[in-house]
């Protein structure tokens, strides 16, 4: 069965703050409801913890690190799920239940089976 990644975009928040306890509970609820198709996932620390890695001049070249995400956008990538579903319709049905779908947005992308 194909696997889809559901990328969670919301405000650039710190999920570990007590203020998000209720929101996190909603994600747990989603996790239980859609347990059947969830193959993995994680909540991410805010983009202030991100480090962008680039290597110049090909493999083994100079490693360039920069603080923060590659691009600053209004909504940040703050988590993801890996879903194994029959087809896109099923994946979209589950994605629509992820709290970010109404507190931000969820981008659903198919994964390439041969490369995973």
């Amino acid at each position: 069965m194909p696997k889809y990644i559901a990328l969670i975009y919301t405000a650039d928040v710190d999920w570990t703050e007590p203020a998000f306890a209720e929101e996190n509970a909603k994600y747990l609820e989603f996790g239980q409801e859609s347990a059947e198709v969830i193959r993995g996932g994680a909540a991410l620390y805010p983009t202030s913890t991100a480090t962008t890695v680039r290597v110049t001049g090909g493999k083994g070249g100079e490693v360039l690190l920069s603080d923060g995400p590659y691009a600053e956008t209004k909504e940040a990538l703050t988590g993801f799920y890996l879903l194994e579903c029959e087809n896109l319709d099923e994946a979209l049905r589950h994605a629509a239940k992820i709290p970010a779908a109404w507190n931000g947005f969820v981008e659903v992308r198919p994964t390439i089976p041969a490369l995973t």
Partner: protein
Amino acid sequence: MTDPKETLDELLRREGRLVLATLTRLTGDLTLAEDAVQDASISALETWPRAGIPPNPRAWLILAAKRRAVDLLRRERSRWVKEKEATMVAIQMAPDDIPPDVVRDDQLRLIFTCCHPALAQEAQVALSLRVLCGLTIAEVARALLVSEQTMAKRLTRARSKIADAGIPYRVPDAEELPDRMSAVATTVYLLFTAGYASQSSGAHERRALADEAVRLGRLLVGLMPDEAVLMGLLSTMLIHHSRRDARLDSAGDIVLLADQDRSRWDRAMAMEGVDLAAEAIRRSADRPERFAVTAAIAACHALAEDASDTDWDAIVAWYDVLAQLDPNPIVRLNRAAARAERGETLQALEDVEALRGLDDYFWFHATRAELLTRLGRADEAAVAASRAKALTESEAQQRLLQRRHLEGG
């Protein structure tokens, strides 16, 4: 019909559409199915004129397309062997003579795939023309006023998304069906309006587009006969299409509804639309349906012997219902125009001037110009008309303004 070659083409186009839907189910791959059906049609064109049309052309085409699909699969390297073998066996095992209810389901599945909301609207329109109507890429490109290369790319991208993202070939569940059916209706209606959007270039292809949209509308009502949204869609298209010969004068200029020679309307088509509108309204009485309401408005016009007989009260009332269902300001613009016809010119102008978001819309300024002219405010009308003129490249629309507001100016 005297040209036997054309009859064969028509037969192949009609059957080809059905066979494509079935092959798509069997192969699970639209691109592969299209290639296989195209090759089957080519061999039919070579064989049939010599050997005669077979007694069951559809079964002949399905068999030929199945063989071709298996050949194509065998040659394809990128697939996993197991999946490939399973598909090949399934194709070979499938009967050539498909029962009508399966043909029906195959068509429905493909319609819902081509109009899937995960595809961009313009991709849905292009796919519908190519896959559901069986137009060539060149024909689709001409009809939608883009280059053949652009259209080929757009279609390839859409097919890849279907395949890679796993957009399924299936009829949506009962719970999703109403929304998905509305999405299909919207796509077909876009296709229809594209047929009327421009009068200048490619008039012939664009009229063919409207014909195709009507054909799809009939197919949808045939496949799902109890649905108000589909009846309303078909009704709306039929009534508009019934005026096709009266919409332009001999010079190719736009003739407004009020000035059209109603004896040139296709009465039979209009009345078929009126009956469908009544049925659509009856079936959606408890929950108004957008296309049922647009059909009701169109029916009010169709039922008027001449423009002065029009029941403008009914039309304004239907626009009120429509405005509740569709927040688009164009609906309120049309409502205002209907009020003006009821003699409320000044109120209509106030309604129009209160609208926001239509500043780049030709008919917004054209309607203002018309209302200002009727109120004797010629200077303001001329300004509005020139705003409208700047917004259109259609010569017919420019001449319309010229005739009504810029005489000698």
